């Protein structure tokens, strides 16, 4: 007899439907699994057999063949165990086959018949919903995450033995509640108030946050660039539910999730020895890269000059399009990668105080080339971070540093204004505006346009440079709550741009 059950497998950060068919024939006892299974999937035979027997169910001593379709997709991991067991139950008549149609089933089995959790529960639930399955059966530990997805009923089963009852209708699991939001860990979230001074750098972060602009911080080691970068997620508006779901799904698949809804924006800071595929994703079983793990959050690259050329070049596509395309044989996977980039580097290769520096032009030019001109081209803001001011004497009045909350409030308002303005064209933030959009939305008053156009003849701005300046100017005006962009906004934006000599190959 033949029975089939639907299950889902993770590909990239999404799930893809796999149909598990089991056929039972008379003949010498055998259990074969086909459909390009990997070692873990082949070992499912042992797990399924023991789990069924230890659950008081029957394991037919016949010729069993299982197929995991589509047959040309490689199958890996233990998440097919439960589906195999259920299909077997169906094929052997222990449960009715037509009951199986509306269910999708995922889970790993232990020899004793218990169920073990699988990775990527949200992705599985989303896949099940898309494919039209009304009910998803998963191990108990995966319920919280999977239940975040509406439109599909999530049923948590602790033991294989109860499956039969569930499918026959004689047993119901407890009502499941969607996973609680992970509390934002307010106590130790980094706050801008911790940073003394650095008013200019804090402002640069505020502008970056408000408009979604990428930022480069320049300064000697130890001045606090990392400390500042870590506080950027704290001034970004909290993610919308859909965004939080995306982030949760990505981290659930990667195994870095906590089992509930991720409500904070991620902060990723890979070491500069990372490879290109570590940074943007890929590899034999395509895994998410750091930029995907930073999706909707911040990707911090410290010591930008120390990253390999390959890694930096690989970032160009996702920084421009917000996604990473990975080819895998004939298929191509898309990983989301809409992250804000914050990079840090030194003023020059010797990394010493400018007065003690004796780098020649050639040293600086070589250093500039390591920073990857096309990458710098996509960074709208640069600021210098100098040494921290000396601690104030205890007796004097304490310096009043702003809390992240106050900054975040301004950022949120600026984002609101942008969202309303850009709603028609479908954009979400100033940094993503195209050239024509930038020119339209940052329509300068008469004074402003004269300023820009006559950008000094020694280093005239290229068209691209002008558009970048307009985008930043638009954000500056938004932060100030103004509808029109003024000359002063443009002048500020000019001071923020990276010297074009560094972005054009020398």
């Amino acid at each position, binding site marked *: 007899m033949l029975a089939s059950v639907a299950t889902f497998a993770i590909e990239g950060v999404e799930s893809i439907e796999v149909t598990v068919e089991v056929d039972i024939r008379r003949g010498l006892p055998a259990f074969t699994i086909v459909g390009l299974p990997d070692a873990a999937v082949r070992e499912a035979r042992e797990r399924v057999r023991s789990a069924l027997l230890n659950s008081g169910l029957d394991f037919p001593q016949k010729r069993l063949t299982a197929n995991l379709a589509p047959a040309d997709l490689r199958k890996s991991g233990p998440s097919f165990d439960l589906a195999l067991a259920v299909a077997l139950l169906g094929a052997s008549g222990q449960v009715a086959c037509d009951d199986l149609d509306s269910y999708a089933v995922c889970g790993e089995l232990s020899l004793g018949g218990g169920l073990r959790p699988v990775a990527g529960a949200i992705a599985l639930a989303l896949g099940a919903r898309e494919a039209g399955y009304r009910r998803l059966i998963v191990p108990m530990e995966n319920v919280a995450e999977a239940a975040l997805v509406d439109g599909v009923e999530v049923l948590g089963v602790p033991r294989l033995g109860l499956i039969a009852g569930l499918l026959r209708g004689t047993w119901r699991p407890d009502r499941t509640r969607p996973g609680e939001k992970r509390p934002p860990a307010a106590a130790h979230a980094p706050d801008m108030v911790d940073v003394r001074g650095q008013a200019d750098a804090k402002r640069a972060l505020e502008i970056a946050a408000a408009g979604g602009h990428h930022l*480069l911080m320049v300064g000697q080691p130890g001045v606090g660039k990392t400390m500042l970068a870590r506080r950027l997620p704290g001034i970004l508006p909290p993610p919308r539910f859909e965004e939080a779901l995306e982030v949760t799904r990505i981290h659930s698949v990667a195994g870095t999730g906590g089992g509930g809804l991720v409500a904070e924006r991620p902060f990723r800071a890979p070491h500069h020895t990372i490879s290109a595929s570590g940074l943007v994703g890929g590899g034999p079983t395509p895994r998410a890269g750091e930029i995907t793990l930073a999706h909707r959050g911040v990707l911090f690259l410290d010591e930008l000059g120390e990253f390999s050329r390959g890694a930096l070049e690989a970032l160009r596509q996702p920084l421009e399009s917000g996604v990473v395309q990975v080819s895998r044989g004939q298929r191509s996977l898309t990983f989301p990668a809409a992250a804000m980039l914050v990079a840090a580097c030194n003023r020059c290769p010797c990394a010493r105080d400018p007065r003690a520096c004796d780098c020649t*032009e050639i040293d600086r030019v070589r250093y500039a080339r390591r920073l990857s001109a096309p990458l710098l081209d996509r960074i709208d803001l640069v600021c210098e971070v100098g040494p921290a001011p000396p601690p104030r004497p205890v007796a004097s009045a304490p310096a009043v540093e702003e809390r992240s909350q106050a900054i975040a409030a301004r950022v949120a308002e600026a984002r609101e204004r942008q969202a309303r303005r850009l709603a028609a064209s479908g954009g979400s933030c100033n940094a993503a505006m195209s050239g024509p959009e930038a020119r339209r939305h940052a329509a300068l008053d008469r004074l402003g346009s004269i300023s820009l156009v006559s950008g000094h003849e020694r280093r005239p701005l290229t068209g691209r440079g002008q558009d970048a300046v307009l985008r930043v100017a638009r954000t*500056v005006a938004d932060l100030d709550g103004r509808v029109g962009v003024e000359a002063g906004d443009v002048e500020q934006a000019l001071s923020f741009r990276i010297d074009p000599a560094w972005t054009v190959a020398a």
Partner: protein
Amino acid sequence: MTGDVDSCAACLRRSHLIGRLAPRIAGLLGRRRPVGLLALKEEELVRALGGRGAGAARRFLASFDDAGARRALRGAGVHATCIHRGGYPPTLLELHDPPAVLYARSDARRLATLLRQPAATIVGTRAPSAHGLEVARGLGRDLAAAGVTVVSGLALGIDAAAHRGAVDGGDGVLAVLACGVDVPYPQANRGLYERIAQRGAVVSELPPRVPPMRWSFPARNRIMAALGGITVVVEAAEPSGSLITAVHAEDLNRPVGAVPGQVTAARAAGSNRLLRDGAVVIRGAVDVLDELFGVGRHAGAGGAPAADGAGSLDPRLREVLDGVEGGAGVEAIAGATGLAPADVRASLGRLELMGLIARAGLASYTRTVA
């Protein structure tokens, strides 16, 4: 373009001998100034080499193909003038060891003009500050515009900046190399080298294809000092090759000028020392022209040196400009003036649009020379 070879056979042979012996000369001289060696007569020079070197030298001299050498020069478009000919710059004759032959890559008429008109030599460190670069460039530009030949060595840093300024200001640009005129050294400046060869002239005492040696740099410096009516050191640390050029200029009784640098900066210690020891203070092209022609006697590069092209500035802009001149960043300027960073940045943008400051490095600014 074919080269114009105007040289007697003896000089041509001697010059090629030096070129051929270049590596051995290195062994003899180390880093000291090659005084004396290049002044030796041919036979004495050969003896000084001693041993196998002498043998090789004699063989070279015996088999030197004069016609072949001339053909090669003409074919390569390289001009050559020896000491005894009319086209040889008289200023070089003041050296006690002038080059036997001066080779050049240039348009022939252009070369004659460049060597005839008044000249100023501009040298300095290869790792200059943004200020030094600005001043060197400004000097090059304004002097070339005033009809003065700007002489320098194509080195990184000050030399290159002076050359670039001169190319911007006119055609009065002349580079003296420490290697054959067909070898752009350093490689990084080959683009500049080509422009100078086309607009001005590239000269050397070494025949084509001879690579630079340690000794050929100080040797080249004596030629630069001799060609210029004044030698200006824009910025130099202690020690520095450009200071050697200044010493040669003194030996020739030429005026030496220097640009004041920050007293706390090591890279200006040498040029500042020259000033202490009596060098002419050079604030801009006008000071150079005053030395060359006499005070106020030239149809000059306009007006007083750049210092206050920023004549009547809004006080806030002036404060920020002063901050930039002092090398401060946005944070420091904000702290010193009490302005908010946003206002400091707006002022920086405005000053940049006015041409008073320019970007230097990834994120910093420097004052420009107007």
